[in-house]
């Protein structure tokens, strides 16, 4: 059975720089977030919700990940991850952070216009 992982292959390529995934924001709970969430998906799934990342939003998403996708975490883990998400990826955090990693990959304007030419957000 020759099941090669395309995503892993890409990350191993010398040109993998462009494909390096974004880093999780620093903060309490980061290591647990990486351990419980990053085996299945990159952190940009989280970043794209930061614009409206209220506690209620993160509660619904963590619940969905646990119940529907069977993300392996205890209730205690879930609370730590929830606190981390609320603190690091809440709406108030966008554009105000000192971190080098912007929280949102696309501005609302560029999503709406949909154009690459002139509409693409710049790298930091």
């Amino acid at each position, binding site marked *: 059975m020759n099941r090669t992982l395309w995503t892993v292959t890409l990350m191993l390529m010398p040109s993998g720089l462009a494909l390096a995934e974004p880093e999780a924001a620093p903060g309490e709970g980061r290591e647990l977030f990486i351990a419980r969430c990053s*085996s*299945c998906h990159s952190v940009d799934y989280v970043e794209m919700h930061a614009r409206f990342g209220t506690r209620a939003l993160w509660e619904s998403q963590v619940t969905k990940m646990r119940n*529907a996708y069977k993300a392996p975490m205890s209730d205690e883990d879930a609370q730590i991850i929830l606190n981390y998400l609320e603190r690091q990826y809440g709406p108030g955090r966008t554009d105000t952070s000192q971190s080098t990693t912007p929280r949102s990959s696309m501005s609302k304007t560029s999503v709406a216009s949909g154009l690459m030419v002139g509409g693409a957000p710049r790298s930091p």
Partner: protein
Amino acid sequence: MALELTRRRTMLGLLSAALWSATGSAIAFARDAVALLPGKMALRRLTHRPPNYETPLEYFRSTLTPNEAFFVRYHHAVIPSGSAEDHRLEIGGSAVERSLSLSLPELRRDFAVAEVVAVCQCSGNRRGLFEPPVAGLQWGHGAMGNARWRGVRLADVLARAGLKNTALEIAFDAADAPPLDATPDFIKSLPIAKALHPDTLIAFEMNGAPLPEPNGFPVRLVVPGWTATYWIKHLNKITALESPEKNFWMSTAYRMPRSIFPLVSRFPSQESGERAPVTEIAVNSLITSMEADGALVAGRSELRGIAWDSGLGIDRVEVSFDQGLTWRRCELGENLGPYSFRPWRADWPALPPGQYEVWARAANRAGQVQVEKPIPNPSGYQHNAFHRVPVRVSA
């Protein structure tokens, strides 16, 4: 084999997480929003893993979307490298008389080839434009594309297996998989009527070329008129069922409140409770001739775009320059079949100098028409509000 696969998957999951950590910490992250996938030009990236990329709007200026620009959508991160030689399509289930195992050459050799031009559009296309925001992939306009699909009819393959008249649904599984075994595998089903429709294909070509890997190489399901959730990529298993498919992706995901989206094309065996499965693509349109800044310049920019629906047929496209008080009918262009993008264009009206907004709306032959505001629904599906674009008129 199952055990080996499980172990392998777990290993891959761990490996990808480890690599993620290593590369993530070692490299200052360049936060470009575009990236290259195998066989693709630069697309707008939503997520790295699983990969989700949308087509930039300028590629919708052609009626057929180039393969290299076609959007990419995955639910799960374990993606096969796609060897056409090894690939087999297994057909089975309690509602067929005999199981089949078909190689790609057998599929091409033993069945009549069929073609259809059809729009493949994610149910959640434009979710990122809902206000208030809705959780889920924050797509703009580009989680869709239009292609000429070539393959064989699903109906012919099912007939070869001896489909019984007790069959209720046909379920489809694929070679991609979740990193964790516990996560529900992505399996979707179709009602018999849709599965047996002559336009429903097992496709191996897209616009005259093999399917790009991220679009389902070597074979994918093509379900014209229905949203992309049913268009299973890397298709490797077809199961004829005598009872409804009940996994998470059918029973919980991709559903909408029945009351607000009356559907023409329904899925009766899955309609239980308040919510019904998303099926047909809502009537929609897009203006595609904007300048680089996203606006139109009257007299200089062209005024054109595309319209599409679930295959009932575009009846008309209209534009308004006065917030919908009056509408002007547009000219429809080439017709590549009922499931295709239909191009349209209009001449500029005489407008006094100033700033305007042009609205575009399409209506189909069944009388369905786009809405002024998207209809709110829990998962942010079927956004088909008028497309609005700023217009500048110079003195």
